[in-house]
């Protein structure tokens, strides 16, 4: 029952958020600021995780596909595919759900419990739209860029692993990552990322916006934001994979 209550309220909030902005110029400025806050500030963690995961995936694949019938370059091919299809769009989005989701929920939740949202409302401002829409749009723009970067860094991580551990010869790795490249896979990864960005920001905005109480509840909202964003990413990952790949 509680699920339907939240779902209904979330849908109503979305309608409010998507109402025409009262001042397009201020919204545009906020989008730029949020792209910096939510996107560029995550670049460090995305870089570290992508390089290491790319390297680990390569080493793991090399050790576990040690079969005479499989060509060696298959390791490069498998690394590239797993990075593009799952690891970059899904895992990076999950990481961002933790980082960005908690940030959004606690920022908006604090504004709620200190009556800053009431102050916006009394001024006649669509507070939900003003606070949440720029974050949603900023993430939907910047997250795909982060994922593209992550894909390159992941493949680069595999290259580093091949070059320095010698699990497979470098030339085979490079042949593998260029083997039967399909643009549709990139398209699929970006579609997923954009949907996940929308889920993370709108769900976290929702939990922040409906915080009631004080500092303790802000903490709860922030936890819920991360948990539910992650769960919905996993669910939508399955749904989108079914729709797009099958």
């Amino acid at each position, binding site marked *: 029952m509680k699920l339907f209550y939240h779902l209904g309220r979330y849908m109503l909030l979305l309608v409010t958020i998507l109402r025409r902005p*009262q001042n397009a110029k201020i919204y545009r400025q906020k989008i730029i600021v949020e792209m910096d806050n939510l996107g560029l500030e995550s670049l460090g963690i995305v870089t570290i995780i992508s390089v290491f995961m790319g390297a680990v995936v390569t080493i793991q694949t090399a050790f576990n596909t040690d079969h005479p019938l499989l060509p060696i370059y298959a390791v490069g091919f498998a690394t590239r595919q797993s990075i593009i299809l799952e690891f970059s769009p899904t895992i990076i989005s999950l990481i961002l759900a933790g980082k960005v989701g908690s940030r959004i929920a606690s920022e908006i939740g604090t504004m709620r419990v*200190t009556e800053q949202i009431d*102050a916006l*409302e*009394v*001024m*006649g401002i669509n507070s939900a739209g003003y606070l949440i829409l720029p974050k949603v749009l900023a993430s939907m723009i910047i997250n795909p860029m982060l994922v593209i970067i992550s894909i390159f860094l992941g493949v680069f991580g595999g290259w580093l692993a091949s070059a320095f551990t010698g699990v497979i010869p470098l030339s085979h790795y490079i042949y593998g990552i260029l083997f039967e490249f399909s643009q549709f896979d990139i398209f699929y990864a970006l579609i997923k990322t954009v949907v996940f960005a929308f889920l993370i920001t709108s769900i976290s905005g929702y939990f922040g916006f409906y915080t009631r109480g004080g500092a303790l509840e802000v903490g709860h909202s922030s936890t819920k934001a991360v948990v539910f964003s992650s769960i919905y990413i996993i669910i939508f990952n399955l749904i989108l994979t079914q729709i797009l790949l099958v």
Partner: protein
Amino acid sequence: MISITDLFKSFGDEAVLKKVNTVFDKGKTNLIIGQSGSGKTVFMKCLVGLLEPDSGSILYDDTNFTALTGHQRTDIRKKMGMLFQGSALFDSLTVEENVIFPLEMFNKHMSRKEKLDRANFCLDRVNIHNVNHLYPAEISGGMKKRVAIARAIANSPDYLFCDEPNSGLDPQTAILIDKLISEITEEFQMTTVVNTHDMNSVMEIGQHVVFLHKGNLWWEGTAEEILTSGNKEVEHFVYASELMMKIKNTKRSS
């Protein structure tokens, strides 16, 4: 002018406002007083639409505010300014940006310079100087209140609401803020509504005083009249302090 008719608000089984009727006039400082928990904040939140009353109506001049949907209320809300009990300044914005904010949002015809001038005028009016570029966390509680007043009047509102403007302030600053509110009310001919449980404020600026008790509008009148209301609950509230008792006794003996 704000006219309130049969305003009723309850939370579950607890009726907080029971059929409140009154009129707040333009150019006057209207006070809502009463004990803690008597429903002052709930009353004010109903007036500005942060809470929905169960029944009754609130008219802003000729517009029935209660009948409007959230979206339709925007036009009236642009004419409102509100000072919250905890100031509610935007903590990601500087003092100056806070005051400019309502102007930025709605006054597309104003130039950047005009907005800055207006913000500085409002800050000057509340005696705030040299802190334009500090953040709310970096100024004192009394200064926050004053900046919040500046923000509330930035858009030249027709209606000003203040929830306990001087709670938590020293007596001197409290009186300063009270005076400020009453002065700007006259100066800009606003309809001002102030929540307070401070008798000093009542005597200082109470042109129209509404006394709430157990969810009812128990008594209303001027600050002068409140001293001789002849109403048991009102007397209880007014003469709660020794000081007010002394004033009462000296008045009697003279």
